[in-house]
Structures are given as C-alpha cells and as structure tokens.
C-alpha cells in the first residue's frame, strides 16, 4: 500500500470510528452491560439499494451486525418467513421494544395503493399503513437513504405515486441518513452508537454529525486544483470538476475519507463529479448532474 503522507487525524480517526463503535457495542453485549435490540427493517417505496449497500458492509460486516448486535425481526429481502407468517412477525413486534430502519419513501396517493408490502389476514398492507403503525411505537426511527430521508428518487418529478419522506408522515424524531444509497458505515455507526449511548449528536436536519458535518469540497483531494482554477472539461479529467457541475461544495458527508465498496474508491476519485446524492433535494435539485458549456474564464 502507498504510504499515507497525510496523517491528519480528521482522516485517520474518522475511518476507525465505525469499527471502534461497533466492536465496543459487540463487547458490551457479550459482557451483558447492554442488550441486543430488536430491529425492524421496512423496505418501502424505493429500489432496495440500501439493504444491498448494507450487505457490502465490512469491519464489521453485515453478519456481525445481524448476529451480534441486533435481532432482525423483519426484513422482506432477508427473512425466512413469508406471507402471513412474515406479517404476523411484523405486527407482533409493536408490543415490544424495537428500532425501526426505513428505506424507501412512502407512496401516499390513493391511500398508498401504489406500494403494497404484503397481505395480512387477507388485507393488503400498504407502505403508508405500515409506517403509520410501526413508526410511532419504535424507540428510534432511522430513515436510511435518500428516499426515506427526503423523498429522493421515488419522489422525483412528477412523483406519480405521491411519495413522501418518513418525516413528512411521522410527527416524531427521525434520524436521517441521506445518500443514494446510504453508506453501510453510516448505518452501522449510528446503530452502534444508539445501542451504546442512545441518540447520537444530530445537526439541524437530524443527520448524525459524526458522518455529515464536513463538506466534501473542504477535504476533497482535488481541492488544490479548485483553489488554482484548474478545472476538468469532461468526465475522466484528473482535475477539479467544479465547472462541470460538482456538488461536493454543497454536500456535507465524509465520502472523501470513507470512500465506497469497502473503502476502495468514490466518484471524484474516479474522475466523475459528486452528484449530491447525500444532500436533501437529490435528485431534482442536484440536476443537471453534468454541464458542458459552463463559462470558465471571465
């Protein structure tokens, strides 16, 4: 591996944070100082991208999370039970303590008929009904990904299903982890923190500050190019992508440090601009994702 010239603690410590928290939680559960919590995962109006993203988690991986930190009561992509039996598990948990993770927006038009997540006693259960029944009773609600946090792609213009964010349905604290998809570390870290200490510090839009506090642009490895006015003209150029529409300057999240696919690379590292997927307003307000005729010198 290339020797890290940059030993800035903002970079090195941030990367260690999630495994540190998760290992601490796992140890505390083993020692009996804290308990495993029940986890309900509702996959609503979206693309399942967030559960797929979580399955790619590393150090700790998904298996550690599912076996050593929480009891997954319901997740329609992963659970063994199906049909009526699955729905019975889902609704039975409301009598108990559980943390609710929601991915996907909530289709609200025509009483939510655009998204039916299962049948219960012969009745179709809409995403709209599920969130209304499970949201208020959960000990924590985590909106994972762009759609759950802010409507995202599901609520993109012209939004035919009337999709809404979790917060626009629930009148309670909803922790938001925007991103399309959400990084597995952002969820694992938040969940570990909740198990250990309760609600993490949130910003004024309810995003955990441990992940969402620094603008991409402020720690971007291409920042020296920006400062010198050396701008990419097309995808694939190795300089700053400000002139082709980079959203790094309005997106406060730790991608430059954390990177993706088990910390391997990230969009800007692969010469394509940030499209602001982890900022509210994505995708409509982050468009156009790329612009070619922007004025360079005035």
């Amino acid at each position: 591996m290339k020797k890290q010239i940059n030993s800035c603690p903002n970079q090195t410590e941030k990367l260690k944070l999630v495994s540190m928290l998760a290992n601490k939680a796992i140890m505390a559960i083993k020692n009996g100082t804290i308990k495993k919590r029940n986890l309900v995962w509702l996959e609503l109006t979206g693309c399942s991208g967030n559960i797929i993203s979580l399955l790619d988690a590393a150090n700790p991986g998904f298996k550690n999370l599912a076996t050593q930190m929480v009891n997954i009561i319901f997740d329609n992509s992963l659970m063994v039970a199906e049909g009526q039996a699955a729905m019975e598990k889902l609704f039975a948990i409301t009598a108990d303590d559980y943390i609710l993770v929601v991915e996907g927006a909530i289709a609200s038009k025509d009483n939510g008929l655009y998204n039916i997540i299962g049948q219960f006693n012969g009745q179709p259960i809409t995403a709209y009904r599920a969130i209304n029944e499970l949201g208020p009773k959960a000990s924590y609600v985590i909106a994972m990904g762009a759609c759950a946090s802010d409507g995202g792609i599901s609520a993109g213009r012209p939004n035919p299903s009337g999709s809404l964010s979790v917060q626009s349905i629930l009148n309670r604290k909803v922790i938001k982890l925007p991103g399309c998809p959400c990084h597995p570390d952002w969820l694992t870290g938040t969940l570990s923190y909740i198990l250990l200490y309760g609600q993490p510090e949130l910003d004024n839009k309810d995003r955990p500050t441990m992940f969402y506090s620094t603008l991409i642009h402020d720690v971007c490895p291409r920042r020296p190019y920006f400062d010198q006015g050396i701008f990419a003209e097309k995808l694939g150029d190795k300089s700053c992508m400000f002139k082709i529409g980079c959203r790094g300057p309005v997106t406060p999240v730790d991608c430059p440090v954390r990177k993706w696919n088990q910390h391997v690379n990230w969009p800007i590292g692969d010469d394509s601009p940030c499209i602001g997927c982890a900022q509210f307003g994505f995708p409509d307000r982050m468009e156009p994702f790329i612009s070619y005729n922007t004025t360079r010198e005035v």
Partner: protein
Amino acid sequence: MSEQHFYDKDFNKTINDINDTIDNLYLTEDCYEKNKLLNNLRKQIANITMMMQNNQNYSKNNIEPVTQNDPRVFTPEELSTYTGKNGNPAYVAVNGVVYDMTNVAAWGGATHFGLTPGKDLSGVFASCHDGQPILSTLPVVGVMAP
C-alpha cells in the same frame, strides 16, 4: 463604489491576512496548527494571484472604465444574459445587488439547488438562506436599476 475600489479593498485585506498568518507561524509550535497556517498561506497567495489575473483581464478587455465612481446598473433584460453559460459570467441579483457567482464553489456548473443565474433570486434567497451571512462573502458586480 467602483470595481477598482473592490479590488484595492480585497487586495489590502488579503495582504493583511498574509501578514497575520506569518506572525502566527512564528508563534506556533504545534505541527498540525503549522500545517493549517501554511495551507492558509497558500490559499491567500492563490487569492492574490487570482485578483491580479482578474485585474489584468479587466484592464485588458476594458469593458468599462476601471475608475468609475458609480456602480454598474443592470436592467432585468441585461441581467438575463449572464447565465454562466457559453462564455457569459453567472450573475444573480438579491435585494437589488448583483453578485458574480461564476467562481462560487456552491454554484458548480452554474446551478445551485435547481436555480440558474441571470435572474433576481431575492425571494428564494430569503426562503433558503434567511439569516445566514452569505451575501457579504460574494463578489459584487453592480446593482439593479431602480
């Protein structure tokens, strides 16, 4: 308020900042702090370079007299040509003042949260950034016609 006046003011301020940074560099022993200061210094020098270039281009193109005592006045039609595209700078009016967004980081590709330049955006600015100290950091190019 002339363009030259802005230039002198920014220039002097940056020179002062550079002197402050150098003073601090003498004092600090912490290596992180030192790196931060050196970074600042580099940024400040880049600012000066940019200002000098702008000034040169400005006098070269001689779009209007450099020493002009009144601010440039824009009509809405004039403003609408400054879209940040095809060689035109990106100007946005807020509360009667016209700002140059061409090189403002948050306006990458000359767009910002679905907004485009060449317009008066006072209303959206108030609804999105009320109370935030943003306008004072933006370069001013003129005022809107009353």
